């Protein structure tokens, strides 16, 4: 179930549509944050941060890892 998100329709930081608005600030912030929203369905993901990485899980689209 790792990395099944291939085409992102939503911003993984704010959950907004990538087709609308500017997500440049989100992308910049993401350098020091894990993703919070699933890019495929904009569900809030379960995110676990550990000292050397993170995992983010969408119930529908699986788990992303740093």
């Amino acid at each position, binding site marked *: 179930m790792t990395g099944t998100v291939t085409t992102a329709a939503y911003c993984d930081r704010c959950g907004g549509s990538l087709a609308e608005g500017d997500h440049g600030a989100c992308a910049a912030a993401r350098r020091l944050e894990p993703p919070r929203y699933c890019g495929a369905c904009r569900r809030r993901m379960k995110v676990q941060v*550990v000292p050397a990485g993170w995992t983010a899980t969408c119930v529908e689209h699986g788990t992303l890892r740093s």
Partner: protein
Amino acid sequence: MPEILEHARAQVLERGVGLDEAGVLAVLRLPDEHLPAALQLAHEVRMRWCGPEVEVEGIVSLKTGGCPEDCHFCSQSGLFTSPVRAVWLDIPALVEAARQTAATGATEFCVVAAVRGPDPRLMTQLREGVRAIRAEVDIQIAASLGMLTREQVDELVEIGVHRYNHNLETARSHFPKVVTTHSWEERWETLRMVRDSGMEVCCGGILGLGETIEQRAEFAAQLGELAPHEVPLNFLNPRPGTPLGDQPVVDAKDALRAIAAFRLALPRTILRYAGGREITLGDLGTRDGLLGGVNAVIVGNYLTTLGRPAGTDLALLSELSMPVKALSTAL
């Protein structure tokens, strides 16, 4: 040299007596041209009263999000529309996080939970987690679980937690503007019990919560009164969805002034860089702070946000000829 720095040289550097509130305020008000001298003096104080070693720590969230409290800076409060969801870390993953932390050379591993205070489920999880870490990893274990009862303090001592973190967060006079679900005095009470138990007290806060410069000085003086073993200094990283989500980031020079001032208020404490340094200070400022009074770092990621890779900080320490505190000297 400004009078306050002459005074601090005589009192803090020579005698090891921290600055009082008025003294801290004078340092916080120094114009930019005197900032290098303040940082230099704070560095000398750190070298004289703490030495060149840097204490390295990793932190991990055992229980993330869904907290019933309303600390206005916190993305883990369940009362705001923050995107952070509640999640628990299992014990194998906790042990693995401790192992990765120890592999960086860190001597401290702090296990944190987003709660008002521990419930029986959390105490059980912590007890099992600490036992598992101690069986497999050579590292000292600290905890941060909110407000404690006397019985919980005793239990933490018994299971081998050597240091307890509980931040006062900000000046007493500003606290009610930042948190309404519990009081500064309740936090102080937990700290008093922790100190009495013999566990090391770790207590710091966050700068940039809308406090005035005077309140920053007040906070440093209140920490001076508590005299914690360690003070983690965070700079607000405004979190989406929280009441302080639109607060500006602390100006880098103000952050450095605060580092020098807190060191001059707390000559012997372990003054740790905690969250927010990346966005507030960047790489250059991180270096300035380590040469301006800071003698401890959190390496790797934070609880819900990411830090610089541990290797970047360790390389910087080596470049600055600051040895990482070893477990043998820590014990």
